[in-house]
């Protein structure tokens, strides 16, 4: 005897429906991200006003009103200033950047010899790109070429004086060439030196430890300009009479030592983050100090502090612009020197030159920071929380 069963069992799934209209599409996105509440709406209005104030002006200055070609200052000056532009005109003077581009890149490097820095730059890129792409094999050989052979080759090629290449004195160097050379050498010197200083600071030998602490804390406590001053004024006093350093070399030493102190603190942070068990484990395997550090501790520690290391690199890359204060002409120094050129002096020249230099610096720094994020994700083996 079976009563009629009132319960209902669904045997087939209901068809999936698309999300309600209020939850999808542009309208929902705007509602969620721009006008979620009264306060939010006010913020959005403020934001729109800000963007509307800045962006059209910026675009018209940099592109629409900009003067792209021209031979001298008249092309970038208004009629009142003795130029061809209508009064009240405001636009970037890219003609100035265009005319001075060679100088911005190489400084006063002789024009007939400019193929040398260009060749070095091509080799630099050709060796750097495969080094940066993780999938490309033969990293060891690549690194040896990049950090070992390239500097020697670049030195011979850039300085010259051998193999029939005319000698180019460093005071003639300038522009991006100086910026990149200083940064490359600074990076190549400061990382190993920083690691040694960090190890010294954590060493059990009291004298070594004390010396490292004094060096690191002193350098970190003073501005780079003071260090550069010291390198340019005091170093000649410290050396025997008659012995003199190249100014470029002095700046190199100053920048490298300065960056090394910051690098040491970054590396120390990584060393401290490695659990004690790793050190003890290495000891119990019978490894010596350098084996322990080189095979067990440093590979882990350096991986942890990649962001810090790259930040230090970026900081140093930006700091190389300070050498313009001790009258060396890096990219910023050359730009600054050129906007006082009477052939080009207009109210727009300085802005245009500086925006160009800012763009170049920005490209390099932004590239470095993005690459460090990529490496960080790639090397992340899940130790971090």
């Amino acid at each position, binding site marked *: 005897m079976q009563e009629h069963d009132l319960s209902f069992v669904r045997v087939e799934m209901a068809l999936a429906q698309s999300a309600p209209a209020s939850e999808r599409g542009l309208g929902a996105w705007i509602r969620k*991200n*721009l006008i*979620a509440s009264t306060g*939010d709406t006010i*913020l*959005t209005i*403020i*934001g*729109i006003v*800000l*963007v509307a104030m800045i962006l059209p002006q910026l675009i018209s200055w940099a592109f629409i009103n900009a003067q792209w070609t021209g031979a001298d200052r008249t092309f970038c000056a208004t009629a009142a200033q003795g130029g061809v532009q209508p009064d009240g005109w405001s636009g970037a003077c890219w003609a100035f950047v265009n005319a001075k581009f060679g100088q911005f890149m190489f400084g006063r490097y002789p024009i007939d010899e400019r193929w040398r820095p260009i060749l070095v730059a091509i080799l630099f890129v050709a060796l750097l790109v495969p080094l940066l792409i993780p999938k490309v094999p033969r990293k060891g050989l690549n690194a040896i070429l990049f950090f070992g052979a390239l500097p020697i080759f670049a030195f011979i090629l850039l300085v010259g004086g051998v193999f029939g290449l005319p000698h180019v004195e460093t005071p003639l160097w300038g522009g991006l060439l100086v910026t990149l050379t200083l940064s490359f050498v600074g990076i190549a010197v400061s990382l190993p030196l920083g690691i040694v200083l960090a190890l010294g600071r954590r060493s*059990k*030998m*009291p*004298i*070594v430890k004390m*010396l490292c602490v004094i060096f690191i804390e*002193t350098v*970190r*406590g*003073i*501005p*780079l*300009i*003071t260090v550069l*001053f*010291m390198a340019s*004024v*005091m170093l*000649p*006093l*410290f*050396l*025997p*009479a008659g012995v003199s350093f190249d100014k470029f070399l002095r700046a190199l030493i100053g920048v490298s030592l300065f960056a090394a102190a910051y690098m040491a603190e970054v590396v120390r942070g990584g060393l401290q983050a490695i659990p004690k068990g790793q050190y003890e484990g290495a000891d119990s395997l019978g490894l010596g*100090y350098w084996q322990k550090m080189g095979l067990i501790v440093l590979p882990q520690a350096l991986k942890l502090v990649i962001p810090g290391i790259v930040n230090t690199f*970026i900081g140093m890359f*930006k*700091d190389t*612009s*300070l050498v*313009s*204060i001790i009258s060396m002409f890096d990219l*910023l120094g050359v730009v*600054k020197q050129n*906007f006082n050129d009477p052939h080009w002096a207009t*109210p727009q020249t*300085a*802005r245009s030159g*500086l*925006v160009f*230099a*800012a763009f170049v*610096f*920005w490209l390099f*720094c*932004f590239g470095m*920071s993005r690459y460090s994020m990529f490496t960080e994700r790639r090397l992340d083996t899940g130790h971090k929380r």
Partner: protein
Amino acid sequence: MASQEILREEPSRGSFINDPKVRGIVFQAVVVIVLVALVWWIVQNTIDNLTRLRIASGFGFLRGRAGFDISDSAIAYSSDSTYGRAIVVGFVNTLIVAAAGIVTATIIGFILGVGRLSHNWLIRKICMVYVEVFRNIPPLLVIFFWYSGVLSVLPPPRESINLPFSSFLNQRGFYFPRAVWGEGSWLILVALLLGIAMAWFVARKARQRQMATGQQFPVFWTSAALIIGLPLLAYALSGFPLSFDYPKQSTFNLTGGFQVKPEFLSLYLALSFYTAAFIAEIVRAGIMGVNKGQTEAAGALGLRPGSILRLVVIPQAMRIVIPPLTSQYLNLTKNSSLAIAIGYPDLTATTGTVLNQTGQAIECVLIMMVVYLALSLLTSAVMNVVNARMALVER
């Protein structure tokens, strides 16, 4: 047991060369010897060079007449003042620009940092663009941009831009009315100090009462009334001694008022804008570092969003924020030495001029190093105190 006896013996070392202790001592001895030799060599060279260049060492030169003018000085200075005075002027200027920059950078940085975490897409993106642009440009370039790109192409004094509150902006800087304190205005200062002291006392009492009884007291409004009201009262009682010296336009220049030179303005703006980008990142990291569960738990306890932020999130975020914030403050102070590039007479610039005039390289560089080191140590000491007060109290 044979094996146990072997264990009890001193572990045999191949030779004392492999003993880490011996090695350490030998290594350190070598380091010390090399270092002493190097220092001795440097000192010898320096003495030789100094006698050859006929430069007397010592700090006696500081009492000599400076003979150069300083464009911007907060304390009395003329070209007849001593070298020592010139360096002090530079030091005061460094302090002024660093303090002003730190305050402004902190305010902009906090706004940007919170903005980057906003629910509002547009605000988030604007803040992100700001941070990514300024973080990746050298500070010196930002300074040049303000100085050569913006301020020096402003109109000449005759065509000054009028701003509210009778202030003016032109090539020579920013002019605004200067307050002239008449007789009896010391009363206002006393009243202000009294107001601050009373507000502090009220806050303390209110806290104690809340701890004891749970009753709340409107501390904020009372303090505001005390700090603003008392000086106002004193102002009225002492017969309104405050008047303003307004900048006036004459034929070629502006006279009167208070002038902020373009050098100071560009350095101050550049340092604030540049450092703000870094502070924004620190603030963002700090707020993101507070576990979401904290916010949810506070909400479950019935706190309002404002109170959650003020009582739960910010105190915990500050703990993460303060150490890196300290180093940003130090960076700003050190970056203020870039003043030399645009001719603002800060410590580095004036000491550099003294160095060029006297040739006392070692003493001058030493003065710079000691002063900056002292400033760094002082800033970190202050921030350490703040940090200690903010630190997690573990029971």
